[in-house]
């Protein structure tokens, strides 16, 4: 694992001075990461290419505590990225209200959760929206293992629907 470029796939250029990019959270904390690592996000790559990254890249939707966790996660899982993996995106919610965890071309870098207005719209970050209607569809999209017993799932859904819905 190369601590400079935050990957396991270092091409040996670690000895060179890696270009560092600053990511700035909504509460103004700066996180320095290598340009290579930061470019795992399409959004950031665009900004770098457009020359907008000089003063640091602002992430107005992300607090420092979340960003720290995300970067910690990326460090741990950088090894599982694959250059050709299609964008994988996380979508929660039914038509009209979605929380989308912006995907990365090369791995699951979570940088923004954005409300998406229209189904099927291609977000600028390069993510694709799915018609996730309920947790079942979202689980398929996410490939999350449901660690509940079936009777627990039933109970949770019932309690929410019976008492805490409009």
């Amino acid at each position: 694992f190369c601590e400079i470029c935050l990957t396991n796939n270092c091409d040996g250029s670690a000895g060179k001075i890696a270009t560092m990019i600053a990511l700035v959270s909504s509460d103004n904390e700066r996180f320095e990461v290598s340009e290579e690592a930061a470019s795992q996000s399409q959004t950031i790559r665009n900004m770098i290419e457009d020359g907008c990254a000089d003063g640091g890249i602002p992430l107005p939707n992300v607090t420092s505590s979340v960003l720290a966790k995300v970067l910690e996660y990326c460090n741990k899982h950088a090894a599982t990225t694959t250059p050709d993996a299609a964008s994988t995106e996380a979508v929660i919610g039914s038509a009209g209200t979605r929380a989308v965890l912006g995907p990365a071309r090369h791995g699951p870098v979570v940088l923004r959760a954005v409300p998406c207005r229209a189904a099927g719209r291609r977000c600028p970050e390069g993510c694709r929206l799915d018609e996730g209607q309920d947790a079942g569809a979202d689980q398929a999209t996410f490939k999350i293992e449901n660690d509940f017993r079936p009777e627990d799932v039933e109970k949770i859904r019932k309690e929410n629907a019976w008492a805490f819905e409009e």
Partner: protein
Amino acid sequence: MGRGGSRAAPAAAAPPWHALPDEVWEHAFSFLPAASDRGAAAGACRSWLRAERRSRRRLSVANCYAASPQDAVERFPAVRAAEVKGKPHFADFGLVPHAWGAAAAPWVAAAADGWPLLEELSFKRMVVTDECLEMIAASFRNFQVLRLVSCEGFSTAGLAAIAAGCRNLRELDLQENEIEDCSIHWLSLFPESFTSLVTLNFSCLEGDVNINVLERLVTRCRNLKTLKLNNSIPLDKLASLLRKAPQIVELGTGKFSADYHPDLFAKLEAAFAGCKSLRRLSGAWDSVPDYLPAFYCVCEGLTSLNLSYATIRGPELIKFISRCKNLQLLWVMDLIEDHGLAAVASSCNKLQELRVFPSDPFDPAGQVSLTERGLVDVSASCPMLESVLYFCRRMTNEALITIAKNRPNFTCFRLCIIEPHTPDYITHQPLDAGFSAIVESCKGLTRFSVSGLLTDRVFKSIGAHADRLEMLSIAFAGNSDLGLHYILSGCKSLKKLEIRDCPFGDKPLLANAAKLETMRSLWMSSCSLTLGACRQLARKMPRLSVEVMNDSERACPLDSLTDESPVDKLYVYRTIAGPRSDTPSCVQIV
């Protein structure tokens, strides 16, 4: 993309989403407003359940007895805005015993304990005491919004506590409450340094307020957008208030009547001319049409007009409404009559919601000329009309069929023909065909009220066609158990069913017991139910709360009554909290 160098052979597994830290999910969930989406997502896995619960900011409890306040607070510790509703809708018509329940106190106590950062609280049809209001004022340092709708149990003393204690109050919205007047000058208790008010609605308050205090308050609250006054504010004071708050968006004028004076007219006209942002208007206007032209300058901008307490009639009213070309919402008395509605039809093409209330529901002679004609005209000419509440004295199937054809986009259709069992006044037939046409044509109908002479046939149509229907109100209709059976075995999306004075008995209730768990609540009064059936229902469906109410005077213990005893009022609802412990003597849980 690909930089130089070789990458290790990739594992083809999807990214391990479930391993994302909880804070990331909470962040994502904070963008999901709809409770139904959140409820579904919570069942995906444990980390989603935790994240959803910890990030839910707005909580809606549509039946205060469906969950306990402690449970709500424990489950959703980060709530900033809560809305709780209590008594069933028929309480508005005096059908629910006075001491039935729906106390807000346990909710306020639990919130004070578990949600110290609470900012908004909204209660509907609940009993809110002065102690509740005092506790709210004392417990939440950033409290901003208090909304009380159709509540009772408090006085101006409670309002004084709110005014004195809530430093950051933005909205005080009192709608249709019964407020006891203790002659306390509660308005004076807003400190001189207090300027944050955006909404002030005390239209339902009966007593006087100190006008000078009100003027000073309005002057210093520069962000005030909604101001709804009560009957105690005279017209000349209205003019000076408006001059202090020209930025107002919503105005309730309170009592709008005085002898005509040209000076006062000029003052009012000038004051209204200064209110360039005024969009919503309401008030209790008495018959002084001479002042109506003072409003003309704001008519064009109005999107909402509530004249449901206004007793003006005639050509002046029509002249006024005809100028309101951008109206989306209109609430009026039937004093507008058919020719008034014809004027609405031709002038107000953007109308979305119409409500016509009875001026004198107990006068059988019906001096007012409001018939099916008015509704037909408005439905024909207003393409965006989707919500109607209409009180009238006569109707025909043909009119309803025409309305259904013209307006398939109704989402809410509530027709109240005042005299029970009234047939089609031309053919003398039941109105089954007309109401069936509505339900067959309006595929998006979510709320429906039927009236007039109706047989079981209309319920067959409703059961079969009303797929999106969520709330249904039935009175003096149907001829047998079949009517209720059609409803309960159909109506896929039904949430609330309220029935009074219909010949529906035990059989359809028991045959469709399981349906009741898919609904929020069922109310049946003056039908043909027996206690035995209610006992059976309660045994069969332990997760439902089955409440029986009989004559309030006769507090007879249920156990002594036989299965054959008739049940006057039944209220059934699903709950995760088990039977409530605060029933008065006239209510028994079976």
